[in-house]
């Protein structure tokens, strides 16, 4: 498509649309916007800088030698068109119109055409902003093209095997807490009166547990002598003996002897093994 850099609009034989009773004849021809939705035109731009960039690109203006006069004309033409159609123009667009007008007026002033004109070129700031904006506009486009989650790539997951169970982190218990729990039990002494907190040494209770375990490991059946460990010495033998007596008393084990002086057998009262 060939077009003159200076002409923004293209003559159309028929009105594009009727907006509020008025024929809309002109629209930017390379904007992909339905003519009856001209209002969207503003939305298509991310503000006046974006819009100016569009105009500059469309007309192949050189940013270095920005023709402020022409660009201002084009810009104002749009602003006027939108105002005629009673669009609500964002303040930024009007500020930009004012800025362009100011640059234009300063360029027209003769003293600015001096030797240092380039340094004080009122267009410089606008050019700088346009350049900076265009860089980030492009960066946004580039970012949008990166493969991203949800749209282009999805996490690949495997389910945990059936035998999986999470790692249990157990709470810490202080020994003092244990003693405090014991003290609570002792404080409830009334309840305890009816039950026997007996004076056996804990070693006897522990030995009772050990003999029961030993019995379980041996199909619920042990020779009496197997309950003792000689290398524990006398004290150990006594503890084991007391434990067997206590176990018998609590009917947890049975002692049997088939004949006088024969081997005594220790059997679990209930053989689970």
């Amino acid at each position, binding site marked *: 498509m060939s077009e003159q850099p200076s002409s923004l609009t293209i003559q159309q034989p028929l009105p594009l649309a009727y907006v509020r009773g008025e024929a809309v004849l002109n629209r930017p021809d390379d904007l992909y916007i339905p003519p009856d939705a001209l209002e969207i035109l503003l939305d298509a731009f991310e503000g006046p800088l974006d819009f100016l960039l569009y105009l500059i690109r469309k007309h192949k203006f050189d940013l270095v030698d920005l023709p402020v006069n022409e660009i201002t004309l084009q810009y104002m033409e749009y602003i006027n068109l939108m105002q005629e159609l009673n669009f609500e123009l964002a303040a930024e667009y009007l500020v930009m119109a004012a800025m362009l007008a100011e640059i234009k007026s300063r360029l027209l002033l003769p003293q600015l055409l001096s030797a240092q004109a380039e340094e004080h070129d009122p267009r410089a700031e606008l050019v700088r902003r346009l350049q900076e904006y265009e860089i980030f506009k492009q960066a946004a486009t580039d970012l949008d093209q990166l493969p991203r989650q949800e749209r282009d790539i999805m996490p690949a997951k495997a389910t945990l095997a*059936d035998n999986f169970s999470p790692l249990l982190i157990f709470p810490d218990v202080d020994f003092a807490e244990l003693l405090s729990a014991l003290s609570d039990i002792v404080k409830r002494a009334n309840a305890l009166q009816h039950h026997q907190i007996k004076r056996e040494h804990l070693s006897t209770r522990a030995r009772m547990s050990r003999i029961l375990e030993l019995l379980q490991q041996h199909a619920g059946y042990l020779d009496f002598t197997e309950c003792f460990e000689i290398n524990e010495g006398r004290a150990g033998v006594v503890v084991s003996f007391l434990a067997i007596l206590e176990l018998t008393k609590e009917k947890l084990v049975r002692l049997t002897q088939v004949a006088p002086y024969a081997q005594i057998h220790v059997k679990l009262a209930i053989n689970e093994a």
Partner: protein
Amino acid sequence: MARKINDVQLMQLLEAAIFAADKPLSRAELQASVLAEFAVSSRKLTQALQQLQHDYSARGIQLLETASGYRFYTRPEFSEPLASLWPERSPRYSRAVLETLVLIAYRQPITRGEIEEIRGVTVSTQIIRTLTERGWVKVVGHKDVPGRPGLYATTAAFLDYFGLTHLNALPPLTEFTAILGEEHAQQVSTVEMTGELH
């Protein structure tokens, strides 16, 4: 119009779909979704899925076909090290748990019923489970009474945790009552007196 897809692409597409889905995918679901645009015969689909299963046969995950379809699973042998990725902090132990523990320590071997009698309240299954899961308590036998209740005892892990070489290292009940002070000591000594001494 059905689009063309070669064997390698088919396998890759199935692989990506099964990995990305939130649930197992059946052959029908695969045909109706990711393969909808391609004409893939049932035979081709089977081949591709078999190829995938084979490709993963020596890896850390495997492709399994379950009742609802195909899905990748981690290998069971890695469940143990993987557990550390999902640590679950269990709540602090209640008073009831600690009292039960201390009674098992001092009165072992002891049944649940006996603990209940002393504590005066029910000992829930949960309390016992908490202590057995911790590895501090285990059943060492059964009492010859109706219901044949389990006899609980403490374990070596219990002693290790509290830095005790032996149950004897636990403060003796009598000494302990002294720590409690005069009033309690008196109460306790009453208990001891009335308790069956031998």
